[in-house]
């Protein structure tokens, strides 16, 4: 009988131990999971209700096309939030220098901060070097600036366009954290998926892997490129609710910078 009691006691103790071990395991598992960076968490426990988001998407589309001796950079002028239009007349294009313009879509507060940041850096460069930054140099600077905030990104989708050191048109396309590539043409933003296939159809040249190397710049003239841009925006405005109201077109060439504006559908 003593044996039986001993057995019962042992099994009880074993169960207790097992239970304790399991709890410890669970706690260990919980600690091993990465802490979620939630604005409401800290030490006050799980979040009780909907919190605010530091990001918003204010919509819009940006396009750029590089030519043999020009570059066309364009962006629509609509600024939205959710299903509302905030304003029909907001410029997304920032002319950084005589040879370089930046078009950005996404979260407008971040775009503003990013453009101011680049402007400040460019002004410093001009003071220190006595000349403006080249477009390829600005391209690298933009990439670095974006990656600097890799762990709290600028929610900005950028297209940088201008003239390279040889005076040829160049376009650089970015993601939100600074990954970039020089291309012959690019589209970013809410209408990107509507516009890019059209540009591919009209402008795509042979793969860069094909030898002999083919020119990436489009064979179109400046006027033809501007017309193409107008057409693509008019098309995107039909189906993308965040694109519309108007399109601002900036052309950079040896003569300098010219700006145009075309109305788009307001609906």
């Amino acid at each position: 009988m003593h044996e039986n009691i001993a057995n019962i006691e042992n099994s009880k103790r074993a169960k207790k131990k097992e239970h304790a071990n399991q709890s410890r395991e669970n706690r260990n598992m919980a600690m091993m999971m990465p802490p979620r960076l939630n604005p409401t968490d800290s030490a006050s426990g799980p979040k009780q209700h909907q919190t605010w988001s530091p990001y918003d998407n204010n919509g819009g589309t940006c396009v750029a096309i590089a030519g043999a001796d020009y570059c066309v950079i364009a962006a629509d002028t609509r600024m939205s939030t959710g299903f509302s239009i905030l304003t029909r007349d907001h410029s997304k294009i920032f002319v950084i220098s005589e040879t370089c313009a930046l078009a950005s879509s996404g979260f407008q507060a971040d775009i503003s901060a990013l453009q101011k940041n680049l402007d400040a850096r460019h002004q410093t460069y001009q003071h220190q070097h006595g000349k403006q930054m080249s477009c390829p140099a600005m391209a690298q600077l933009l990439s670095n600036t974006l990656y600097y905030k890799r762990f709290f990104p600028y929610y900005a989708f950028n297209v940088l366009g201008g003239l390279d050191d040889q005076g040829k048109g160049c376009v650089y396309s970015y993601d939100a954290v600074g990954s970039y590539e020089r291309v012959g043409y690019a589209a970013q933003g809410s209408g990107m998926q509507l516009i890019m296939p059209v540009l591919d159809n009209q402008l795509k040249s042979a793969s860069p892997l094909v030898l002999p190397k083919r020119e990436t710049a489009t064979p179109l003239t400046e006027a033809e490129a501007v017309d193409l841009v107008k057409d693509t925006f008019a098309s995107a405005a039909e189906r993308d609710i965040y694109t519309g109201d108007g399109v601002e077109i900036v052309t950079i060439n040896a003569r300098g910078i010219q700006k145009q504006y075309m109305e788009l559908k307001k609906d």
Partner: protein
Amino acid sequence: MTGKQPYVGQALDSPHAFTLAPGPTKHTQYPYVTGTSVLGIKYKDGVLIAADTAGSYGSTVRYKSVERLKTCGKHCLIGASGEISDFQQILSYVDKLILNDYMWDDGNNLSPRDIHNYLTRIMYNKRNSFDPLWNTLVIGGVKNGEKYLGVVTMIGVHYEDNHVASGFGNHLARPIFRDEWHENMTLEEGIQLLEKALTVLFYRDRSAINKVQVANITAEGINISEPYALKTNWDYKAFKNPTAGAVGSW
């Protein structure tokens, strides 16, 4: 572990405050006493900005005499929706800014555009620290003949336009403005348009009350009206049996 250890009472402005500070969260999570829409339009002689005088505590209309329109220097007026205490904090910042500007005594004053930019940087900065001022601000003014009207939201989104609104006003008032606003409206036309929008908001926004103020900013100066009541009509046929004819209702 090298480096600074977090301690209770660590500067709340520190960029890591929300991740390292032990104890309860010490930054904004949700608003308590809030103001609803602010409306603004440009007209021939300047800018008109309007708002009601309600301060809601969740679903209760707790305070009915909250002044949500405040002057800012000689040329500018700020209207706020959202958390009232945060607006009071913003007014404190603006007060210091204007005082500093005045102390320069150099014949130059900050323009409405400058103040808008300053407020945008504050709102964006606070958003970056995950501790926002829970407001949408409407800034309007006239300086050197130039009429200015702009908005900043709690996360730093900012823009200017001929007519603006915050909160519910974006959904109910802006469409009316888009339909009826035009360049060079007279003062009477402008007030009529704002009152129309304010009335619609009173009918349809549960946080709105029938006690409003309208501010008029011109080159001559700023005038904020005393609070007054809007005329309302509850006899519309559509208000009786509103679901008559609607499919699936009774």
